[in-house]
C-alpha cells in the first residue's frame, strides 16, 4: 500500500510536468492549428537561463526567475517571427518541419554555447521534502503541482474575464471571423507564442531541480506531453491536464509493476490505444474536416 501511494504521488508529480508542457502545446495549437515541436526546448532554455543567471552570475533566485520569464517572452516573440510567421499561409506540414528545425537549432545552439555537461539548479526550498508514513513528499513536486494549479486558475481568469484574453480566444476559434471583428490576428498569435514560451520557461525552472539541466531535457518531456495532449483531447485545456496526469501515473505504475526499461513504451502504447479506439481523446470532439 505504501509503495502504491508513493508511486501515485510520484506519478502525479511527473504527470504535472507533462501537463505544464502540454498546456503550451495546446495554446499554440488552438491559435495556429500547428504543433510546436520545439515547445519542450522552451523549458530547456528557461532552465539554462536560470543556471546562467543564478549559478554562473550569482543573481538572486527571485530576480533570476523574473529575468528568465522576460527573456522567454522575447524568445517566444522571436520564435513566432522566425519560425511561424513566414509560413503562416502554408499548410501545417512546412510549419511542423520548421519547428522541428527550430528544436534542433535550439538544442545544438545551447550545446555549442554551454557544452554537454549537465548542470544542477538547487530547488526553491531548503528541505528536499518530508515523509508521511511510508510516503516521501518531494517538495519540488509539491511546488510543481501548486504552481500548476495556480497557472491553470490564472489562465482561466485571463481567457474568460479579460478583453485581451477573449480576443485571443476568438482568434484561436476562428481567425477569419476575428479579423472581421477588427481583432489584430497577427498580434494575438504573437501573444500566444510569447505566453507559451513563458509557460515553457516556467516549466523548465520548476523541473530543473528534479531532472537537472541538460540540452535534451526538454525534448523527452515534450514527446510525452504531446502524447498527453492527444490522449486528453487535442486542443483542450482540460485534456492537457488530465492527459498529463494520467500519463504520469500510468508510466510510473507500469515501470514499477511491469518493466522499468520499457517505461517510455507505456506512454506510447496508451497513445496507440487511444488513436485506435478514441482518436478524439478524452475531452475532444469528433474530428471532421470542413468542406
Amino acid at each position, binding site marked *: 500500500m505504501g509503495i502504491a501511494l508513493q508511486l501515485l504521488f510520484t506519478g502525479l508529480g511527473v504527470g504535472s510536468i507533462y501537463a505544464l508542457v502540454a498546456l503550451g502545446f495546446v495554446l499554440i495549437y488552438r491559435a495556429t492549428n500547428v504543433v510546436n515541436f520545439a515547445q519542450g526546448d522552451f523549458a530547456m532554455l528557461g532552465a539554462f537561463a536560470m543556471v546562467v543567471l543564478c549559478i554562473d552570475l550569482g543573481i538572486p533566485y527571485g530576480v533570476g526567475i523574473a529575468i528568465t520569464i522576460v527573456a522567454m517572452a522575447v524568445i517566444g516573440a522571436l520564435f513566432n517571427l522566425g519560425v511561424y510567421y513566414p509560413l503562416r499561409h502554408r*499548410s501545417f506540414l512546412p510549419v511542423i518541419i520548421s519547428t522541428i528545425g527550430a*528544436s534542433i537549432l535550439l538544442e545544438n545552439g545551447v550545446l555549442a554555447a554551454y557544452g554537454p555537461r549537465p548542470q544542477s539548479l538547487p530547488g526553491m526550498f531548503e528541505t528536499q521534502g518530508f515523509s508521511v508514513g511510508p510516503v516521501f513528499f518531494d517538495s519540488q513536486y509539491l511546488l510543481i503541482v501548486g504552481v500548476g494549479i495556480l497557472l491553470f486558475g490564472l489562465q482561466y481568469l485571463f481567457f474568460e474575464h479579460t478583453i485581451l484574453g477573449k480576443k485571443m480566444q476568438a482568434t484561436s476559434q476562428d481567425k477569419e471571423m476575428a479579423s472581421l471583428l477588427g481583432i489584430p490576428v497577427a498580434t494575438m498569435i504573437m501573444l500566444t507564442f510569447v505566453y507559451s514560451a513563458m509557460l515553457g520557461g516556467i516549466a523548465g525552472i520548476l523541473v530543473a531541480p528534479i531532472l537537472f539541466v541538460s540540452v535534451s531535457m526538454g525534448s523527452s518531456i515534450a514527446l510525452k506531453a504531446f502524447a498527453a495532449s492527444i490522449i486528453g483531447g487535442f486542443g483542450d485545456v482540460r485534456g492537457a491536464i488530465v492527459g498529463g496526469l494520467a500519463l504520469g501515473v500510468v508510466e510510473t505504475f507500469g515501470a514499477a509493476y511491469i518493466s522499468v526499461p520499457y517505461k517510455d513504451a507505456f506512454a506510447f502504447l496508451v497513445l496507440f490505444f487511444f488513436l485506435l479506439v478514441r482518436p478524439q481523446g478524452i475531452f475532444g470532439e469528433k474530428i471532421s474536416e470542413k468542406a
Partner: protein
Amino acid sequence: MSGAPAPATVVATLAARRERRGWILFAIAAIATLALPLAVPLQAYHLNILMQASTYAIAVFGLTIVLGYAGQINLAQAAFFGIGAYSVALGTATYAMSFWVALAIGTAVAAVAGAALGLTSLRLGGHYLAMVTISFQTILSLVLANWVSFTRGPDGVTGIQRPSILGHPIADSSHYLVLCIVALYIVGYLVWRLGHSRLGRSMQAVRDNELAAGVVGVNAYATKVIAFTLSAVLGGFGGGLFAGGFAYVSPDQFSFNESVVFLTMALLGGVRSPFGAALGTALLILLPESLRFLKAVYLAVYGCAVILIMVFMPEGIWGWFSALKRRLRPVQPVVNDAAPPLPLTSRTAQAGDAVLLEVKTLSKHFGGLKAVDQVSFTVRANTVHALIGPNGSGKTTLLNVLSGIYVPTGGEMIFEHRPITRLKPHERAANGIGRTFQNIRLFTAMSVIDNVIVGAQRHGNEVEGGDAGRRDLALAALGFVGLASRALDSVQGLSYGHQRLVEIARALAGNPRMLLLDEPGAGLNHHEKQELVGLLKRLRGHGLTIFIIDHDMNLVEQLADHITVLNFGRRIADGAPAEVLRHPEVIKAYLGEEAHRAVA
C-alpha cells in the same frame, strides 16, 4: 483515338521529349557512377561514403513518395531502415540465411509494419501521424536495445554477410558498391516513374487537396496507406543494403535523430522529386566533411538550415532549380485550339423524366444544430436542378452530404436506383457523381492537364489507351471549357474564372452522370458568368444532369428547370421556377417578413 488532332500530339510530344531527355541524362549519370568504383581503385573511405550515400538515398526516396508525392509526414524512416538492417544482420549472422532471403524478409517486415501503422493512423493524418510515427520510432529503438536475446541488445550485431550473385560472392566493397548503386538507380527510376503514373497522380492530388481528391474519385485513405507502405518498403530495403555494406549494426544507428536526418535530406534536396532526394542525401553526407570548421555548431546550423529551407526554398534545391528553369523558359501555350471531342458530347439529350437522384428525408445535424432537416426532393435526368436559399440555410451542407463528405444523420439517397447513402466520396465519384467547390479546390502544385487527368482516371471510367488515352480525354475536357491552350500551365498562374473552368473540366473528364456545382458563379464577372451559363446549357444539351447552388437569381432563372428552396435547413418550396419564385414562403425567406407583407 484515331487521328488525334494537334494539341494532343503537342502535349504527347512534349511529354515524350521530356522523358527522352530525362532518360539520356539518367543513363549518363548511371553509367558514370557505375563505372567509377569499377574503373578507379577507390579508397575504403570513398567506398564507405558512397555506400552510405547510396543506401541512405534509397530510404530517402521513400520520403519522396510519402512526403513529396502524398504529403504525409513520416518521422520513423530510420525505424524502417533499422528493420531492414536488422533483418539482414540477424538473418545472415544469427540464422545463416542467404543475404537475399534476409533482405526480402526485412523489406517485407518493413512493409507490414508500415501498412499497419498507416492503416491505424492515416485516417487521422497530420499531427497524429507525426506523433504515431515518433512513437513507433521510440518503441522500435527500445525493443532493439532491450530484447537482448533476439537483437543482441545494445552491443549490436557483427559478422553480417554480403550476398553472392549466381554463386559469385560479392565480398569486395567496390563490387558491393556497384550493387548498391544499381539498386539506387532502379529504385530512383521507379520512384520517378511513379510520380508520373496513375497512382502517383492520385497521391499528389491527395497531397494538394484531400477533399477534392476524394470527390473526383481518388480513394484518399487507400492512396495514403499505399504511399506510406511504399515508403516503409524503401526504408527497409535501403537498410538491408546498408547492413550488408557496413557489416555491423547497432540500435543507436536507427534512432529518432536519424529519422530527422533522413527528413532533412529529403527536404534539402527537394522532396517532390527523387533527384532532389538523391541530391539532398549526397549533400548531407558530404557536407559534414566540408563543414568541419563549424565544429560543435554544425548541428545547430543544420537546424537553422531546415527552417531556412522551409521559409525560402520549400521545394528544396532541386525544386528551386526547376522553378528557375520554368521562369527562364516559360511553357509555350498549346497552339491549335481544336481539341478532340469529349465523349460526353456524342450523347444527346433524351427526352423523358427518368428519376436520377432521389433524396428522402435527409438530415444532417451538428450537435444541436439541424443544418439539414428532413429534406426530400427528386432530381430528374437531363435537367438543371437548382438549390437556393438564404445564407446559412444549409445548401452547402446538403451538397456535402450528397457528395459524401458528410455522413448524414438520417434519411437516404438513391442514385440511378442504387442506394448511395453510405458511400464514401470516391465511391460516389465512381458511380458518376462529379462536383465542384464554392471555394475552388484544385491540385495547386500540378499542371492544368494533370489536374484534369486525375478526374479522368477515376475508378469505373473506362478509357482506351491507358495514360495516353486519359491525356486525350483530359485535353478534350479542357477543350470543351475552352482552355486546351493552357493545358501545360500551372494552375496557380490561371485567373480565378479559368480556375473555375479547370475544376469543371476536371469533373467532366470523369464522365459524370450528374454534376454538382457549388456556387459556380461566385466571384465571376458578368462576362464570365454568361460564358458559364452558355457552357452549362451546352452540357445539359448533351444530356448531363446538373445540380446547382447559386445566389445569383438571374443565373438560376436562366438555367434552372426545377428549383428546391431551403431555409433553416428545411425545404420550403420545390417545383418549376416560375411557381417557386412566387411562393410566399420563398419571398419571405429572401426578403424578410416586412417585404412579404408589402408585396401581399
